[in-house]
């Protein structure tokens, strides 16, 4: 059975000028120990998906439809207090900017110990001992001394290691890592990703890894989901999506450019911008930018359907459009 099931998730933001739909019909699953990479342009809804899963959408944002299930148990409609017990204990979270995620007024050891005593049946002394062990595990040198240091006494990379320790210390089954290396120096990004990947593998922790970095996805993820305008438009095994993307958008994103046909001049840089939430076009949200757009795309919305080895939301892969798919050169 899958560890996490997200089914038809819909997130809305009521605003003065009408309701914005930030996530629309998002469905995916993560198996125990699996790493799901999530990619997509800025504003696609990647962070929103993570926040909805851990129940920390910022008001007035709210889950307006669908379900989130953890080990089969519905968690999207739990009372705050019950969901709180799941956060940290069952689902850990890693945020983007390690310079702002740690409380400046508490030592890293205290923050680790507090998280562990909240969730695990251990006393302060044991928690302190484990805090040192966790710091060692994430590669903080001289952990026994550093455990009493404050966040400002660490470099950015070291702080993100501390954040990783904090996310994993109550031994959750799933970690939602939202661009864990974007804010870090390029030279240490690879180390931190490697650490995260190895720790997750060692502990058997599944991971939802949001990132802009295709290299990281290719190396770390088992499967990958591509998001666009609040929807998942393609999902599949990482090899297939990276090397042989089906959806025109992911194909452009991965740089796996189909042979230039008479209709497509260039696709390297995807032209245009993702629509704002208030102006998502009817039909396929990608249709204003898609080089293969045809009439149906402008009126009917495509669901995820089998496409190559993956599943993609694109009408080209509807059996009745096989002719068009041939002509597009995507097949």
């Amino acid at each position, binding site marked *: 059975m899958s560890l996490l099931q997200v089914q038809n998730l819909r997130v809305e933001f009521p605003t003065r000028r009408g309701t914005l739909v930030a996530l629309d019909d998002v469905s995916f699953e993560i198996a125990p120990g699996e790493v799901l990479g999530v990619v997509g342009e800025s504003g696609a809804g990647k962070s929103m998906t993570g926040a909805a899963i*851990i129940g*920390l959408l910022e008001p007035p944002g709210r889950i307006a439809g669908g379900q989130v299930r953890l080990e089969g148990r519905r968690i999207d409609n739990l009372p*705050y207090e019950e969901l*709180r*017990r*799941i*956060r*940290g*204990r069952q689902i*850990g*979270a890693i*945020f983007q*900017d390690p310079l*702002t*995620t*740690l*409380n*400046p*007024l*508490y*030592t890293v050891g205290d923050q680790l110990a*507090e*998280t562990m005593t*909240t*969730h695990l049946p251990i006393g302060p002394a044991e928690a302190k001992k484990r805090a040192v062990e966790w710091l060692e595990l994430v590669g903080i040198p001289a952990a026994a001394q550093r455990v009493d*240091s*404050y966040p*400002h*006494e660490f470099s950015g990379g070291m702080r993100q290691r501390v*954040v990783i320790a*904090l*996310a994993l210390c*109550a031994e959750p089954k799933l970690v939602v890592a939202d661009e864990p290396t974007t804010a870090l120096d390029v030279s240490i990004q690879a180390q931190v990703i490697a650490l995260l990947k190895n720790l997750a593998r060692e502990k058997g922790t599944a991971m939802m890894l949001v990132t802009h970095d295709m290299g990281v996805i290719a190396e770390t993820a088992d499967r990958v989901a591509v998001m666009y305008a609040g929807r998942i438009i393609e999902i599949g095994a990482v090899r297939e999506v990276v090397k042989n993307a089906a959806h025109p958008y992911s194909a452009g994103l991965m740089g796996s450019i189909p042979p230039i046909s008479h209709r497509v001049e260039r696709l390297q840089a995807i032209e245009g911008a993702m629509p704002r939430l208030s102006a998502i076009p009817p039909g396929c949200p990608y249709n204003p930018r898609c080089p293969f757009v045809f009439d149906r795309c402008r009126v009917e919305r495509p669901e995820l359907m089998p496409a190559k080895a993956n599943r993609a939301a694109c009408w080209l892969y509807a059996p009745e459009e096989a002719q068009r798919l041939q002509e597009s050169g995507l097949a």
Partner: protein
Amino acid sequence: MFSFIVSRLLQALPVMLVVSFISFAMFAYVGDPVAIMLGQDFTEAQRQALVRELGLDKPFFVQFMTFLGNAIQGEFGLSYRLSRPVAELIAERAPATLELALCAAVIAMAVGVPMGVYTGLYRNSWLSRFFLTFSLIGVSLPTFLIGILLILVFSVWLGWLPSFGRGDVVRLGWWSTGLLTWSGLKALILPAITLGLFQLTLIMRLVRSEMMEVLRTDYIKFARARGLPNRAVHFGHALKNTLVPVITIAGLQLGAIIAFAIVTETVFQWPGMGLLFIQSVGAADIPVMAAYLMMIAAVFVSINLIVDLLYYAVDPRLRIGRGRGH
């Protein structure tokens, strides 16, 4: 730590010097002390004697140094009005003002901080709206009016609490306290509320806006994402991060409470330093005014030092470069 205190004390030195100079200048240039002390009938010989006795024939700088030396020993001469040593007068009045100010500050903090936390957490509840409206009144009504209204309601109409004076006091050495008698405590309530109300609303608004700011930060989101209970997130992680600005303002306000107790003391005929100061201004009693000025400056300087020490205790980032480094 020790060097930190010493450096802060050294920084305070120029402030105290400037204030002493102003006090001294009051002595030297406001009114003619000799004329005030001699009264109407005197001989030239008497005048000369007094001038020598007061050291007024010495050069300006020497006079200032003498004044400073005396001030450090708490010597401010005799009050013109009461012909008693100024130090004695102040020591007599100080306990009343300090007790009043401290009670006002405690009320302001003990009520203002929880109200600020509540209104910061539950922005839209009707109780928050009530607190905010109430705080607007506290900010906009002048102190004397609040005092008079309280007297009207609780002393005149209801007759529950006295409208003036300090009640019975108990002597503990040179300190006279009203905190140990029933009538002393009753007499303290109205003036303390009057004096503390403005600070209370100020602290409430400050804590509220700081809380709202802090609750938006990533580390609070992360604390929630780690599944910490609300109590720990709100009162541990969030409130602690609002403390630095709250300590600053509270410290400054404590100084202000002591300095501006004048109005409250006048309304309630509270026998403190403020009342003494007002009476001294009326009588151009320069020594008392000068001593009061310097005392208030000393209070502000010490409060600032305490505030700095509290910063140091609360925020580890300020300890950079002392002890543990990067």
